């Protein structure tokens, strides 16, 4: 079985982001970049499936500027077999990403696609579902457990009320939630080996995809900041404040 994993390069989750003074976006220059944490979970799941003998080959894809190759190398060091970059400096929105990934799927014919449930920069949570729709495949979103069986996958999903399990036909698109696994750190020998693994590069034109954004960002602003309040002496004072000052109990 062949698995395709898609990974996004974005501002590291530990960085406190800054809105640009001209309100055109968020400052990305000289900021630490990493793989989207949910995509690390996607890579880990694919590698685990390969180690279990269920999967023969893992192809990792990333879309964006040249520097995305670093993110692809990280995934290769975690255990993916080869990489594909779709190189573009254009802004990519989820629909365009889904179309580009569909183009790659048509070249690679994977049996399973695993992506993160959401990228922690735009917080859209759309790409996996859109890709599944464009391919006419089934989808298992927000997955916390996967059980692959003959032509079918049982997916346990994190939903608002708890957990639900669905059975979906393969090929399918899975989007990962936090509890699916704990991603590994790449070992130094594996990082060295990853440098020799193959990365093919395509352009959106090669795939015949128009990536023009459908949403125009008019401005990006900072939300209203909360101010720190009072540190109280004890719980009795807290209850008094909640009752008589804030009047919330």
């Amino acid at each position: 079985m062949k698995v395709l994993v898609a990974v996004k390069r974005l501002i590291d989750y530990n960085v406190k982001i800054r809105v640009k003074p001209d309100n055109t976006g968020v400052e990305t220059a000289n900021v630490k970049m990493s793989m989207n944490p949910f995509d690390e979970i996607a890579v880990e799941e694919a590698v685990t499936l390969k180690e279990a003998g269920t999967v023969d080959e893992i192809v990792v894809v990333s879309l964006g500027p040249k520097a995305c190759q670093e993110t692809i190398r990280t995934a290769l060091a975690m255990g993916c077999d080869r990489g594909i970059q779709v190189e573009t400096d254009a802004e990519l929105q989820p629909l365009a990403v889904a179309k580009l990934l569909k183009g790659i799927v048509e070249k690679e014919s994977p049996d399973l696609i695993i992506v993160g449930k959401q990228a922690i920069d735009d917080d859209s949570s759309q790409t996996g579902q859109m890709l599944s729709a464009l391919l006419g495949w089934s989808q298992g979103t927000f997955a916390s457990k996967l059980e692959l069986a003959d032509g079918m996958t049982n997916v346990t999903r994190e939903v608002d009320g708890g957990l639900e399990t669905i059975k979906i036909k393969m090929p399918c698109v899975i989007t990962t939630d936090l509890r699916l696994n704990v991603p590994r750190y790449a070992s130094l020998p594996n990082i060295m080996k990853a440098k020799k693994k193959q990365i093919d590069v395509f352009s959106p034109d090669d795939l015949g995809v128009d990536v023009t954004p459908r949403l125009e960002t008019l401005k990006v602003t900072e939300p209203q900041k909360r101010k720190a309040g009072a540190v109280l002496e004890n719980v009795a004072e807290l209850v008094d404040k909640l009752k008589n000052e804030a009047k919330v109990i």
Partner: protein
Amino acid sequence: MSVLVLAEHDNQVLKSATLNAVTAAAELGDVTILVAGKDCQGVAEAASKVAGVTKVLHAESDAYANHLAENFAALLVELASDYSHVLAPATTSGKNIMPRVAALLDVAQISEIISIESEDTFVRPIYAGNALATVKSSDAIKIITVRGTAFEAAQPEGGSAAIETISIDKDAGLSSFIGAVLTQSERPELTSARIIISGGRGMQNGDNFKILEEVADKLGAAVGASRAAVDAGFVTNDYQVGQTGKVVAPDLYIAVGISGAIQHLAGMKDSKVIVAINKDAEAPIFQIADYGVVDDLFNAIPELSAELDKALS
């Protein structure tokens, strides 16, 4: 403008997240609610009574019994051309279904809007709510999910919309429902509770959540948790408040043993009053709390319970 809202329900009860989406929809135009399910006549009737709703579409099928995305998306795509906007609450169900609809219509989705500037311009949080983007859509049909905390709930009574039965049965044949393990609780739902008390890594284990539950029951509150507490297995995933869990904005949010990672703050910083109880005076949660108590939670929570008995008696 005609706006279609996808109802969130469990075939028995219309979920309150639908009411917030109706308020957003009413800012855009005439509101039609789609109730698709199995034996969900009662939900359709409840939807027809929601204030501000002009029509209810009611679709019955085995294929709609469990909100499977493939089947719901096929139904919505068939209906969408009659509407300028299609909205759903930004619940796990709405987030699962709507991007699929958008892709099939070849339009963008605008996720988790928190304000409506005009018929094509919306504000949505990015970077865990640390920035707000104002975006303008150029698509003919706007596919939108609505963050419930940003819009008041529509009144559940007072409307008298006509119910129209539609016989579109879409079974994509790609997926089936096996089962669910849902948390049963007498307490209010996290996303609609007026008061929430949440525990973090500082709770040390799942049993210790009992002391929070005791306080919650005195306040009529819901119980939540940080990601750290869920990852550690103290409580189940449906408790999680944060960027990738539930977003809440109650009148009172009490954070207990929670340090205040930005991913957690993303889910609760719009609460009206925030209380932090933590033994670490340097914890970032104190920077956004209206009231802080620096104390070991295992002293403070039993004391809080006792003080509430006095104050509420």
